[in-house]
């Protein structure tokens, strides 16, 4: 009897394992979200940027953000990284050996299929029809899974506050786009390095710039396809790889494809949980009935 019991145990364990495998097996990524050419976005041209940081100042003014000084006198706004007080930042990437340097603007990419939106436990981060990824502080519970999920490390957290929330670039969605005004940073740019516009138009502009001076640009529009496409694009100087500007060679699939397909498989119509429940219930019933029968056969002599 003991053997049959153990065999039963093993068989069910194996069956459970197989079922779990089938569930966990990576499905093909769910249908990719198609980029909408009418959504707004920006084109950041690293070859044109002169590093004046007017965009940084405009952003701080627009969003009423405090200055962050990394110098002793605290006179100048000089953040080293994007933070809860700095939504956008001009960074210098320098290659001393080859004597090449290049400025790059860091900010939210406003992804077509945002990882933060997929990750957010309450849906406080949502892609808007205007193209921006909007954050709702009222909904947020501050779990910071969006920060884990974002491949660009964009969402920031108010570490110094007792009741902190997430902060990030809004694409000036409510403060300016709603009033038919371009983003603050693009309006402030004196060099034409930040172009505001519709996603489809921006791609055309970027392509025409590359075609007009192929000797100046890398023949690639960063953000057209990376992580499923973004609404913020980058152009880079011929000698400067995107990766050295802090824009890694990401795959063209959205990063949330795997987690979402696993979730989807486990909870499709609740079939897997119900199936596991039924199997376990059956085993329990079988074992209890056998126990009762054994007890009856022994004339109730055994305890329990």
């Amino acid at each position, binding site marked *: 009897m003991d053997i049959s019991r153990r065999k039963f145990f093993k068989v069910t364990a194996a069956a459970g*394992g197989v079922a779990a495998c089938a569930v966990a097996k990576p499905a093909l990524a769910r249908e990719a979200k198609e980029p909408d050419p009418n959504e707004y976005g920006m084109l950041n041209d690293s070859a044109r940027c002169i590093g004046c940081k007017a965009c940084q100042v405009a952003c701080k003014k627009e969003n009423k953000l405090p200055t962050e000084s990394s110098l002793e006198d605290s006179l100048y706004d000089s953040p080293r990284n994007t933070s809860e007080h700095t939504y956008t930042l001009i960074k210098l990437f320098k290659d001393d050996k080859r004597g090449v340097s290049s400025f790059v603007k860091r900010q939210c990419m406003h992804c077509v299929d945002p990882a933060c939106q997929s990750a957010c436990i309450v849906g406080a981060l949502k892609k808007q029809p205007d193209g921006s990824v909007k954050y709702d502080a009222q909904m947020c*519970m501050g779990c910071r899974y969006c920060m884990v999920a974002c491949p660009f490390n964009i969402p920031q957290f108010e570490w110094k506050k007792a009741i902190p929330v997430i902060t990030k670039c809004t694409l000036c969605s409510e403060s300016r786009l709603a009033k038919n005004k371009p983003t603050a940073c693009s309006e402030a740019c004196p060099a034409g390095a930040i172009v505001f516009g519709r996603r489809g138009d921006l791609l055309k502009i970027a392509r025409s710039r590359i075609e007009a001076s192929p000797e100046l640009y890398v023949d690639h529009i960063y953000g057209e396809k990376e992580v499923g496409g973004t609404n913020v694009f980058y152009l880079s100087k011929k000698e400067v790889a995107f990766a050295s500007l802090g824009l890694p060679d990401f795959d063209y699939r959205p990063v949330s494809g795997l987690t979402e397909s696993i979730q989807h498989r486990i909870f499709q119509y609740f079939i897997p949980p119900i199936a596991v429940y039924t199997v376990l219930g059956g085993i329990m019933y079988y074992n209890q009935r056998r126990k009762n029968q054994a007890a009856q056969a022994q004339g109730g002599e055994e305890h329990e």
Partner: protein
Amino acid sequence: MSRPAAPLRQKFFTFNVAVLLFFIGAGVVFAYFRFFHGFASITNLSPGFPWGIWISFDVACGVALAAGGFTTAAIVEIFGQGRYHPLLRPATLTAFIGYFLVALAVCFDLGKYYNIWHALVFWNGTSVLFEVAWCVMMYLTVLAIENLPAVVEQYKGNVQLPGSLGLLDRPTNWFLGRADQVLRRTMAFFVIAGVVLSFGHQSSLGTLMLIAPYKLHELWYTPLSPLLFLTSAVSVGIPMVIFEATLATKFFGRKPETELLSGIAEYIPSFLGTYLLLRIGDLAYRGVLAKAFDGSLQGYSFLVELSLFAMPYFLLKRPRIRANGTFLFLCACSVILAVVLNRFNVFLIGVNPGNGYNYFPSVGEIAITLAFVAFGVLLYKIGVNYLPILEEQAPDHEPA
């Protein structure tokens, strides 16, 4: 053979309790700064490492190490191994305490902890965390129900409320009697639900980091991660029961239950074997085994993790090792450490967010984590002291 469970009724304020209270007190001091002066005042968390040890240890390890509850319940109640029944109540109690602490730790980690109920109202089905939150909430409820019989058993028939509330003694007694009947009839439903819910969130914890393919090291970033989390949690269930039972024996001066523990330990190698097979098979299939030997911190960490899993697998296959209480305890510790290191690897050590970010827990973070552990131990002591959790032992026994 089987004796009924009974409260220990030992002296409560011992030196050990004072030590626990000291750790809890230290945690409370740091918690003050966390809640009133922000994370920056006591933690080393950064934009690159928004999750520190409060998530990797208090939550991820806490959930995994509470797996003793559902594994024991499955073995005893579902697979009908009634001889291990004496282990069920302590395992269910520790699981409840474990999940209660997980929920509490989450509140410490959440920026807007008072919005925690939003997970009930605002649904985002694509979020792995959403699923984890629901499963943990429901399982915590199930665990509370599974622990109710011990409470009902303790007070049924001898309710003595103080003062004029004494009038309510009889209705309360009647209510407890009814509750006892209802619980007896419906417990099977909750036991199975507990196992299904555990399957759900134990595996989903493994899905969490899969949203960061460019941050998590290849040794741990695998589509099989949910299954590996589940199988490792199942593997650590019995070792946790052994670990707790051994410590309870030592600290409460009870007779060792070695025979019972070595009996149930027989299952461990098959669980560990399944896990190791999946783990190594996955690494080989993806062709990343070489990464383990590249001399990096992650590589070494993986090797230590794997050996902590593998050693008890080979040792516990031998009946002579299982029969020895000390070896059994050490093997259990090895599995526990393996799972803890694995969770640390997935949530911290194997994570590289780029931009030169790195993380090591601060004194404040460690103090709060230790306070949670101490609080858990204290709750367990309160539980076994005043409720019928541990089996009554023969009175002629001399404490060791």
